[in-house]
Every structure is written in structure tokens, then in C-alpha cells.
């Protein structure tokens, strides 16, 4: 397992958000976590990125290293785990190129940066056209491209995606997931959380269902798509 999460507990102030979440991802996999609003999907990703503190007793290992020893910026820069946050959160006052360049702030490997930038532009040719435009002026789909491209530029071992389909037109969603497949084929493990369960399960190989801060069902995507409980709760019958 590239990423092992065991018994992850998180609380916001006094309110428990996660009650011992356990799951794992192997290198090169595409895995999704589905669940309702407020079930704990985003919190799980934020805990992995160390943006929210994990409570004592939680364990998170990435490639054999204890994630709890790393501050957020080092999870990105030293371990290569990138995070596309919910709502994209681009730097709207910076140009597309500046957003991508800022993502390489901590990197010193110039030739690799150039290669990664070329890959981002080959997956999202639109971004090359929009290069010098402020990111805040782009359409929703283009902004999601910048968010994914930017995450790829920060670190390429694993990418965490929080609701990448949110706010996108159906066609745009499909091409976004095609792009994520390309990024996965280039060697990046992908963990995404989605409310759009059908789309996520079609894209991912395996999935977890989270309810009230606990993983309740796990399995291959095919099995989950046919699971009567999952069908009823998340796939609209």
C-alpha cells in the first residue's frame, strides 16, 4: 500500500467529523470515496494533507513514512502528495501561468518542471492559450483544469481530488475524468471524493462508501455499482 490510513479520527472544535476511518491505496490505483454531504469525505482528504489535525490514535503512512510528522507544505513538497481542494480555490489574481509556477515554488528540479509543464499543457491545451489570463476570469471548466494542472505541478506521487466534477457541465465532467486518467497513466495515484457516485465509480477501480465519519462499504467499483444498498442510497435507485 502506498497510502495507509488507519483509525483516523478528526474533530472540528468539539464536533467529531471522522470516527476511525481506515482504508488504503496501492501505487498507481484510482480509488474513490463516495458519500453524502457532510459524511466526512473532504475531511478525510484534509487530514491526509495535514490541513486539519488528526486526533491521537490515528495512523497515516505514505510510502512508509508517518504523515503525522509532516506539516502541510512538506506533505506536498517532500512526499509529492497534491490536493485539489473543493471549489478549486485558484489564485484568481494570478495568471494561469503564475498559478502553475507557484506550484513549483519548493521544487529545484528544473528539467522535470519543464517536462511536467509540457504534460499539463498537452493534457489541457486550453491552458496554453489562456496562459497569461488571470485565473479568476476563466470559465468553471478551465478553472478546474488549472486546479488539476497546478496540483500536478506541486507533486506527482499522488493526487487527492475533492469533488472535481462540482459545477461542471456533463461533457466537461467527462473530459475532466479523461484528463485524470491520463495523469494516472503518467504515474500518479489518484484518490478522489465525489458526490456524483455513478461517475466516480465508473472512473475508479475501487471505492469506499463513507457515512457519518465511518467507512461502511468497500469494494471493486463494479460490485459497488450493483450493490443494492449503494444503488438505493447513492445511485438514485
Amino acid at each position: 500500500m502506498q497510502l495507509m490510513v488507519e483509525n483516523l479520527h478528526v474533530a472540528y472544535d468539539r464536533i467529531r467529523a471522522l470516527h476511525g476511518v481506515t482504508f488504503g491505496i496501492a501505487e498507481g490505483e484510482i480509488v474513490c470515496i463516495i458519500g453524502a454531504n457532510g459524511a466526512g469525505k473532504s475531511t478525510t482528504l484534509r487530514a491526509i494533507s495535514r490541513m486539519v489535525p488528526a486526533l491521537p490514535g490515528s495512523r497515516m503512512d505514505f510510502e512508509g513514512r508517518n504523515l503525522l510528522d509532516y506539516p502541510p507544505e512538506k506533505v506536498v513538497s517532500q512526499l509529492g502528495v497534491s490536493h485539489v481542494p473543493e471549489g478549486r480555490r485558484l489564485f484568481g489574481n494570478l495568471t494561469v501561468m503564475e498559478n502553475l509556477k507557484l506550484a513549483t515554488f519548493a521544487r529545484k528540479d528544473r528539467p522535470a518542471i519543464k517536462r511536467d509543464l509540457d504534460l499539463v499543457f498537452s493534457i489541457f491545451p486550453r491552458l496554453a492559450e489562456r496562459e497569461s489570463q488571470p485565473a479568476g476570469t476563466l470559465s468553471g471548466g478551465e478553472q478546474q483544469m488549472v486546479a488539476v494542472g497546478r496540483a500536478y505541478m506541486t507533486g506527482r506521487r499522488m493526487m487527492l481530488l475533492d469533488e472535481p466534477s462540482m459545477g461542471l457541465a456533463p461533457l466537461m465532467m467527462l473530459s475532466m475524468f479523461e484528463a485524470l486518467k491520463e495523469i494516472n497513466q503518467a504515474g500518479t495515484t489518484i484518490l478522489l471524493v465525489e458526490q456524483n457516485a455513478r461517475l466516480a465509480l465508473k472512473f475508479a477501480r475501487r471505492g469506499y462508501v463513507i457515512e457519518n465519519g465511518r467507512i461502511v462499504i468497500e469494494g471493486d467499483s463494479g460490485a459497488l455499482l450493483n450493490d443494492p444498498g449503494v444503488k438505493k442510497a447513492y445511485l438514485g435507485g
Partner: protein
Amino acid sequence: MSLEFLLQNVINALQWGSFYALIALGYSMVYSILMLFNFTHGDIFMTGTYIGLGVATGLLALSGAMGIVLPGWLLLAMTIVIAMFLTSFVGVAVERVGYRPLRDAPRASAAITGLMIGIMLEYGNLAILGTQRLLFPPIIETVTYNIFGVFVTNKKIVIVAVALSLMLALHLFIQKTRWGMAMRAMSFDFQVVPLMGVSINLIAPMTFAIGSALAAAGGILYALAYPVLDPFMGILLGWKSFVAAILGGRGSILGAALAGFLLGFIEVFVPIVFPSTFRDLIAYSIILLILTFRPYGFFGQAHSTQLRL
């Protein structure tokens, strides 16, 4: 009002505007990235001026001991550069000791801490250097030029020129370097910055360092014109520059610079019309009036509370 008289006062206004603008920039830069008003900044300006005094005195003694006479402009340039460098550490220390532990605390706690550190700097200075006012050494001699009936001193030219050059340098730094880019990003959404692999604990001290260095430069320029220093000199200038930062628009770098100069103009031109004892009363009434109609200042935006990541 004759044209010569008008130009004479424009030059005075530019000189005062240079002081206010250089100090106001520090308030705005820190606010733009941390949404925090650094109320120690006026006293960092004072500390920077004293550091400048120490550097200038030291350089004079050193060159005297070595038997060389440094030209005044070189002495001034060296004093400004060295004092800016040294004062930046004061800013870094204030951030590290005062503000960083309070980053998630209510803003009022940080404001009070800032004021307290300011008082410590004032009375620390008093305790170490004593109650006697110190005189900034006259490192350049005053030369007065008569340009078509307008009297301009070389010091005023130097003050305005150095201030404008530093502002231009700051602008280029913010727009063209990756550090400046990180600052701009942080001013837009500081919570996402760590996800870019950039530590907030790198950008925040750097911003304090630059703001403090600019305040030190402002202090030395101020001392060229008004060489009698006292430990409380940063209070009034600090607060006035803070007003300029607010007037420019919270967090707006350009706004702070422009409002600093506007403040200089208002303060110089009000006493031409009104008795000079009314100067600040009327000047700040005008600013209050402007803020009544533009509560966010010239370039400020109504901030919505940022989303939690």
C-alpha cells in the same frame, strides 16, 4: 498664491508623503497576507531610525579611524542599506515572537500584542539609551538650489528620489519574482498556500522583513530632514501612516503609497488656508469625510470572510 509658493509646498508635501508612504507600505503588506494590522510598525520605524543612527555613527567613526573621508552620498547609501538589512530582523523577530503564536487567535489578541511590543521597544530604547534626545549625524551637507524662485534642498530631492526608487523596487519585487508571486497568492487566499508546497512561515516573515526595511529607510530619510530623535517618534508617524494605509484600502500596496502622498499634501496645504494649530484637526477631518464615503479606502475591497479549507 504664486506659482513659486505652490511648487515650494508641493515639494514639502512630496517629502512628507515619502515618509508616510514608506511606513504605510509595511502596514498594507502585512495586512494583505495575514489580515492583521501590525501595530508595532510605528515603533519598528523608530527602531530602524535608531539603527540607522548607530550605523551612520559607526561608519563615520570607522572611516575616521582609517583616515578616509567617505563622500556623503556613499555614507548615506551605506547607512540606508545596512540599516534596512538589520531592521528587517526586528520585523522577523516581532512576527516570530509576537504574532505567529497568535495566528489562530482572535484578531484583538494580536492587535494588543502588537501594541505591547511597541511599548517594549519604546521603553527598551529609553532604558538603554537614556532620556536624552539623540542627534542624527549630518552625513550630507545641506545645499539649497534656487530653481526659478523655488528653493529646493538636496536633502528633499534625495528623500523623494530614494522613497520613489524603493517603491519602484518593491513593485518589481512583488510583480516579477516568485517570492512576490507567493505574496500575491497569499493575499488572495492564504489557506491554500501550503497546498502549493509553500510554507506560510516563509512568506510571513519575509513580508515583515521587507515592511520593516522600508520603515527603516523611511526613518533615515526622516532623520535627514528632522535629525532630533526620541523613542516616541514612531507613535504619531506610525498612526498617521496607518491612517494612510486604511485610506489607500486595506491590503492595497499601491493604495498605501498613493494615500501616503495624499496625506502629505493635505497636511502641507491645510495650514496655508487655516491656522497651523488647526492642521491635524482639519486634515484628519477631511480623511474621515473621505472614509465616510469610501469606507474601504481607494483600492480596498469588501472582504468576505474566507472559506475554511
